[in-house]
């Protein structure tokens, strides 16, 4: 290895070492904050005003985002020595960048702890309701924080590509949200059938009739109740609206995904679905014309 290469490698090591150190510090900070936030809803460490474990408010998240983009613009613009005064500026930047994400992560954790009875404040109804609330919390969090990042105006040569990528991510998130709500709806009859079976048994006992003794009888009762509750659900407006919303989100997601993949495929020697569809349509029209002509020739020949 030449002296020049050695020097270069050594310089790279220093730069890389700094980078590794800065990344480690950023994650250490993030983990510390998350751990503190976890402890608050669980009641293990009582919180006090202004401590680092406090859940970030929307204002704080917004401020963090603003500072992040300020820092980002200074990086992408003409770099000044002051921008990288120390490795510590990078962990700060990373923390600010991650802040919106653990903003809703903390909310989610807190909600989960409350709903599962770990704290004294939750009002859980049933598992289906918990899933619904968790989904809502998670995606509302995204709506507040994550979506803001995705909708930051894009600039320059790559703007359309970036916008399509962001749109695909956003629509995937919307679809996941709708799908989870749809699946949650399908859980409801399972829970209702459980209580219906309990009620039925209590009713039989009250009437002095023999309770269902064998598992076969109990299973038959449960499956019948389950079927009845599904039938009621599947005809309900709630179900229809959720189904429609899920399918609409699925459509939007698939359309956004197709646009994104089209950008990728255009750089490869692979035809896109759009290219193929245009070709198929032309073929379809041509075949119809040929068939029509064949029929005409046949008719004329018979005359």
């Amino acid at each position, binding site marked *: 290895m030449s002296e020049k290469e050695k020097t270069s490698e050594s310089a790279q090591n220093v730069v890389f070492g700094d980078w590794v150190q800065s990344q480690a510090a950023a994650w250490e900070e993030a983990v510390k904050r998350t751990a503190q936030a976890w402890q608050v809803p669980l009641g293990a460490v009582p919180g006090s005003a202004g401590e680092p474990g406090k859940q970030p408010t929307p204002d704080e998240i917004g401020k963090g985002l603003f500072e992040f983009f300020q820092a980002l613009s200074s990086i992408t613009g003409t770099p000044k020595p002051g921008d990288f005064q120390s490795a510590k500026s990078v962990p700060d930047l990373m923390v600010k960048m991650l802040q919106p994400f653990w903003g809703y992560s903390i909310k989610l954790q807190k909600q989960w702890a409350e709903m599962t009875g770990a704290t004294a404040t939750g009002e859980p109804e049933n598992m289906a309701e918990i899933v619904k609330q968790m989904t809502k919390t998670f995606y509302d969090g995204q709506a507040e924080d994550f979506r803001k990042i995705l909708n930051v105006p894009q600039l320059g040569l790559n703007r359309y590509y970036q916008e399509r990528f962001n749109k695909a991510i956003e629509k995937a998130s919307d679809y996941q949200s709708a799908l989870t709500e749809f699946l949650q709806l399908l859980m409801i009859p399972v829970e209702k059938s459980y209580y219906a079976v309990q009620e039925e048994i209590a009713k039989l006992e009250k009437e002095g009739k023999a309770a269902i003794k064998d598992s076969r009888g109990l299973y038959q009762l449960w499956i019948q109740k389950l*079927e009845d509750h599904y039938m009621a659900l599947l005809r309900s407006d709630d179900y229809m609206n959720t189904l429609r919303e899920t399918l609409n989100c699925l459509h939007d997601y698939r359309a956004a995904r197709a646009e994104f993949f089209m950008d990728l495929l255009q750089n490869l020697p692979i035809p896109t679905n759009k290219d193929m569809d245009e070709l198929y349509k032309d073929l379809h029209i041509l075949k119809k014309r040929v068939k029509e002509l064949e029929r005409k020739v046949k008719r004329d020949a018979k005359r």
Partner: protein
Amino acid sequence: MPSDKKPQLSELMAPYIMAGELIMARVAGDSAKFYDQVRKAKEVLLSPLETDIAVTPYDVVWEEDRVKLKHYRPRGERLLKTPLFIVYAQVNRETMLDLQPGRSVVETFLAAGLDVYMLDWGYPTRKDRFLNLDDHVNGYIDGAVDFILEEHGLDQLNIMAICQGGTMSVMYAALHPEKVKNLVLTVTPTNFDHDAGLLNVWARSLDPDKLVASYGNIPGDIMNLGFLLLNPARLMIDKYVGLMENIHSKDFVENFVRMERWIFDSPDLPGEAFRDFIQWMFIENRLIKNELVLGGNKVDLKNITMPVLNIYGKFDHLVPPAACDQTTSKIGSTDKEDLCLDTGHIGIYVSSKTQRQFGPKIIRWLTERDESPEPVHAETKKTAPKKKKAAPAADEE
């Protein structure tokens, strides 16, 4: 929830745990029975199982694009002079009519001396997404009918149609009545303006434009998921619990696997045809109102003047009686009959009870109307298969 006390996770999970326990208890029973079941299940599942479907031998005699025409090899003398052309739905496969020896509508027809042709819609690919309803009715069905008529030197043939294939055959019979001698409709929806079945309720709320834009062709798996959701308790739980209970019976397992193979063999639906069907049938109900136009021609049900036999199932949850029982009152035929059987959508073709009613009734009805047709051509051409048999020739062994 009945109690004011804050439930713990275990309480919240109780409905799911109970469901699991009930299923397990139903399947396993007591421990002695369970071990016996496992032993027998092992014997059955590890032994060679006969689960082939559609084994009746046939030749592919015509094809256009993905669509093929199967001609089943006659067994002995042809007792009916008019050939029978069977049009199945595009949802699922026509193999249901030939599920297994002893439970095969095709076999019953062949044994009675019918000359049977059946349309195989094949598996649409993205290339087929622009094929619309008109292409299927005035294109593929008409192409297959012309082929059969030419092969037999006849003016007319008999059509028997199933479900959505029946709806398309009603359109065909109204547009080309001169080519249809007798029309047998089975579980064929023509009226879509009712709330008797969930399928109708759901289909009316679909946005076919968005689905077609998203998928091109509508995936068979999506359709199947929709069918499963019509009754999740029975189709996604109870059915498999039944399998586990009977897993010691080789016959039961073989029949079950055959049915599963058929159910989940679902071709995609060509996008434009799907859009036309949902929009014009389910949403606008054009057919029964005589408002449908295909290929520039009005589909007038009064043009259907040939004899019509209309069979449907009393307990059909996919095509309920309300979807089928208006047909005969709207057509122009004078020789027409409705027959409502005590069965469901699939049971009409495969249940042992209806096997004794369904096939023999159609054979009788067609035989009574099979007066000698005059050949169109001087020479009757013999069917020349384009391809060698696609199904194993069980009767040649």
